[in-house]
């Protein structure tokens, strides 16, 4: 039994404490104590260990996602304001190769946080994700985009 079972969680909690209270030696000490004790609560939950590779793919994913969020914000704002006649929305089925639950969770957050696409359901048996798209022109194109932009990088990071 190690002293700090989840080092990243502990570090994140300590960082949050410092951001909330301000940086001073006393607060670092107190925050560190609280972070170590609270992160031990995760021990009893026994989460599946995640294998995460830090490095260039993570940075690239962050940049791509930020750019996509801004671009699709503008696209959705245009749809709301001008209501183009020929727009139609619909569901698409995305067959995925991701198996790690953490990678799937990150993909769900990315897909939903980007305005214009919404993660609805994941079929764990057949590995198909149901996604609702606001501006559906071509299902194949959407699937190709999602696979090309996010899935490949997530595979590099998590699997």
């Amino acid at each position, binding site marked *: 039994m190690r002293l700090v079972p989840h080092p990243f969680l502990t570090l994140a909690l300590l960082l*949050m404490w410092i*951001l*909330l209270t301000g940086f001073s030696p006393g607060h670092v000490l107190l925050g560190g104590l609280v972070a170590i004790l609270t992160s031990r609560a995760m021990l009893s939950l026994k989460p599946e260990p995640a294998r995460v590779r830090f490095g260039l793919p993570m940075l690239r994913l962050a940049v791509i996602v930020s750019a996509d*969020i*801004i671009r699709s*914000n503008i696209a*959705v*704002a245009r*749809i*709301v*304001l001008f*209501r183009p006649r020929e727009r139609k*929305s619909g*569901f698409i*089925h995305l067959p995925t190769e991701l198996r790690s639950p953490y990678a799937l969770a990150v993909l*769900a*957050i990315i897909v*939903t*946080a*980007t*305005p*214009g*696409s*919404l*993660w*609805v*359901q994941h*079929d764990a*048996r*057949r590995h*198909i994700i*149901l996604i*609702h798209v*606001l501006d559906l022109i071509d299902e194949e194109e959407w699937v190709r985009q999602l696979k090309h932009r996010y899935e490949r990088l997530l595979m590099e990071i998590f699997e």
Partner: protein
Amino acid sequence: MIQAPDLPLWATILVSLLLVAGALVTLVGTLGLLRLKNFYDRVHAPTLGPTLGALLILAGSTICFSVLQSRPVVHEILIGLFVTLTTPVTLILLARAAIYRDRSEGILPVPPDVVSRTAETRVDGDG
């Protein structure tokens, strides 16, 4: 109410632009709640506020407080992170609840069988 902190001119212009732009983006997002026709279209609209709207307004607030206290004040990052991470969770949960209800009532055309049959019957048995 005429009240505002005393900032240098460049910060005034920058913060004003960021705040108004962020509020506009958020307004467009909620306007989508009124203008789009069905529920699955409307779910997309409120994502504008928590992503770009919150980003702009929180950036304005960060710059304002950093200039006021003449040291970097970055605790707005916490709100930004929290909102962008939690809103998708709420929306996913809502979309799942909505599609489950629509399937069991059969009013709107929704794709029926992404979930395998056994899981579907298990859910039915619970309700």
